[in-house]
């Protein structure tokens, strides 16, 4: 991004945007970095209206200590060497002598310790840290092509600092490797501007640093599913032409890039990403090929496998239905530009990526792109069972169709248990993830960031239920969150989301019953708001209340008790 564009973006904040207050902490004049941070935050999350504030010149640690957690939604700490010791900058000339070296290391250690202490105080907001990105000045006595002892010691202090911070749940460190790729180290330092104005970055470097920080402060929603082609994508060769034994993915056969792709898919699947196959092929051959024992991505990683000679968009449509997720959460990978175009035409929201089978450099870049699209902070228990859950859901649907029972009789027969944890712990990432990525069974579409979610839970009047479910088809993990406030004999439900994987099991009825029974209220008021995608919530409330509109969103205990629907058994766990 050029500075002119950043100035324009920073000048035109979205008036109706959600205020997102970021404290930019650095020891130099923030100048263009501040402008770029506002601009990149606006781009990362167009719903935000970023407000970036800075601190005093030359006092990085002090600026961090003065930040009030209550007055910001995120902290962006941009460090440079002079923040460890002013002698490591160029605006002071107070000694690079041999006698200064041990003192520089001690000062660096003290300042690093001060930063760690200051960072520890942040309990509810994300702290994003960019470690020094500029070259160290020539302080060592050795020539520049040799690592000197002082440089090694200073970098060691910084490395321990980064290791300490990486273990803190709300700290995120900007990737040095990504910075190197986007902003070559030799093109970063603006010595002239540092001397003239105390701003050490060239504009392009300032933009790259700000972009990386904005991506950590306002991360994009991670994609959830990947649909892959088979021939010349998952493996090398056309299985229909050369046979099951001749398709390959090995170094010896010149098809290692396909092995790496399989390895990438296995890794994604193990982190909870859904992986499916859409292939124009012979289904018997595909079944045999996918059963090969040397396949790196396991058959258990893939669900469903859609093989036919019909347009791939039809296969994609069936996969989306099986996964029950929106097209904009999905990536489609195929070596054929024609297939990519056909799927893109049918599903413009899907990211369609070519598999560059004859260009190893591009294939390697594709793996990095996939990690960016699917990357997540933590892998939850729900991630580990997601694919298996969908398989079992299909079993359940088949059993439900074939059973000669009513809906309630069938649900009674599957040994279901709903567990409700009454929780005020913002450290559990799963509830916030559910709140922010659930669209269909969603009371009003309200989204939260880490700071606002933490503030909501910390409100003494608020209560949140985190709902887990299990039946004879296996556990679904944590699949719903209900949050609200008790006002007299009424419980106001501010937010209610449930994963689409949990539909049709009457878990929502169990939630309502628990609110009445556990909180002892006589009425529940639902803060319902229609969104473009929350039809399942509207249907449920209509069945419950007659209408989800403003006039009829109140449910009394007696009205609920008149409903004769089956309610699965509920266990309420101790307060978290």
């Amino acid at each position, binding site marked *: 991004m*050029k*500075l*002119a564009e950043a*100035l*324009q973006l920073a*000048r035109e904040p979205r008036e109706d945007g959600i205020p997102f207050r970021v404290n930019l902490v650095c020891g130099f004049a923030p*100048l*263009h970095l501040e*402008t770029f941070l506002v601009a990149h935050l606006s781009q990362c999350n167009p719903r935000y209206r970023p407000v970036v504030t800075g601190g005093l010149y030359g006092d990085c640690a002090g600026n961090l200590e003065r930040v009030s957690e209550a007055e910001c939604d995120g902290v962006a700490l941009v460090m440079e060497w002079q923040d460890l010791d002013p002698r490591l900058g160029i605006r002071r000339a107070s000694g690079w002598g041999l006698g200064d070296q041990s003192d520089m290391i001690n000062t660096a250690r003290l300042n690093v310790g001060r930063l760690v202490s200051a960072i520890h105080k942040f309990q509810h907001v994300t702290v994003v840290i960019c470690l020094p990105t500029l070259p160290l000045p020539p302080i060592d006595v050795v020539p520049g092509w040799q690592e000197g002892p002082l440089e090694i010691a200073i970098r060691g202090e910084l490395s321990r600092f980064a290791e300490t911070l990486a273990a803190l749940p709300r700290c995120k460190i900007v990737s040095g490797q990504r910075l190197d790729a986007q902003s070559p180290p030799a093109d970063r330092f603006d010595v*002239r*501007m540092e*001397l*003239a*104005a105390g*701003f050490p970055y060239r*504009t392009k470097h300032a933009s790259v640093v700000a972009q990386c920080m904005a991506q950590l402060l306002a991360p994009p929603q991670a994609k959830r599913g990947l649909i892959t082609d088979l021939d010349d994508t998952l493996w090398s060769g056309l299985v229909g032409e050369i046979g099951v034994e001749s398709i390959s993915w090995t170094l010896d056969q010149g098809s290692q890039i396909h092995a790496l792709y399989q390895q990438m898919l296995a890794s994604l699947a193990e982190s909870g990403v859904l992986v499916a196959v859409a292939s124009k092929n012979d289904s018997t051959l595909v079944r045999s090929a996918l059963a090969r024992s040397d396949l790196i991505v396991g058959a258990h990683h893939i669900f469903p496998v859609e093989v036919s000679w019909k347009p791939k968009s039809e296969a994609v449509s069936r996969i989306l239905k099986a996964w029950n997720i929106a097209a904009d959460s999905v990536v489609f990978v195929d070596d054929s530009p024609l297939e990519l175009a056909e799927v893109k035409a049918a599903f413009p929201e899907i990211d369609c990526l070519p598999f560059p089978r004859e260009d190893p450099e591009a294939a390697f870049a594709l793996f990095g792109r996939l990690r960016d699209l699917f990357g997540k902070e933590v892998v939850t228990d729900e991630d580990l069972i997601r694919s298996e859950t969908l398989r079992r859901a299909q079993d359940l649907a088949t059993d439900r169709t074939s059973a000669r029972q009513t809906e309630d009789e069938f649900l009674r027969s599957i040994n279901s248990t709903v567990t409700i944890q009454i929780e005020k712990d913002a450290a559990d990432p799963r509830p916030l993830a559910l709140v922010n990525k659930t669209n269909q069974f969603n009371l009003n579409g309200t989204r939260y960031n880490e700071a606002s979610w933490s503030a909501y839970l910390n409100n003494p009047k608020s209560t949140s239920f985190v709902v887990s479910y299990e039946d004879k088809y296996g556990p679904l993990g944590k699949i719903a969150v209900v949050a609200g406030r008790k006002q007299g004999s009424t419980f106001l439900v501010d937010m209610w989301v449930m994963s689409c994987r949990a539909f049709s099991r009457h878990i929502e009825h169990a939630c309502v019953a628990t609110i009445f029974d556990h909180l002892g209220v006589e009425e529940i008021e639902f803060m319902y708001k229609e969104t473009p995608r929350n039809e399942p919530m509207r249907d449920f409330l209509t069945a419950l209340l007659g209408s989800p509109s403003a006039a009829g969103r109140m449910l009394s205990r007696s009205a609920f008790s008149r409903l004769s629907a089956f309610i699965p058994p509920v266990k309420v766990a101790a307060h978290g």
Partner: protein
Amino acid sequence: MDDIEKRLTDCFRSVFPELDITEVSRASASSVGSWDSIAMLNLISVVEEEFNVRVPIEEMEQLMSFELILDFLRRTNAH
């Protein structure tokens, strides 16, 4: 107005959006109220990006008007 003048006008408008296009060619530190030290640094950086030039440190404080910056760009054969 030649190509350099047009692009320099855009640079000025990105830093001083309140300026009418007809006022830009006469703009100077004394005539534009928002022309402070920060705006000056923004302007220099935007011009450097647009014309791929580097303004020497000793010239920075001299370039206090549209005319002077235009003259600098012509002297340095910016394109």
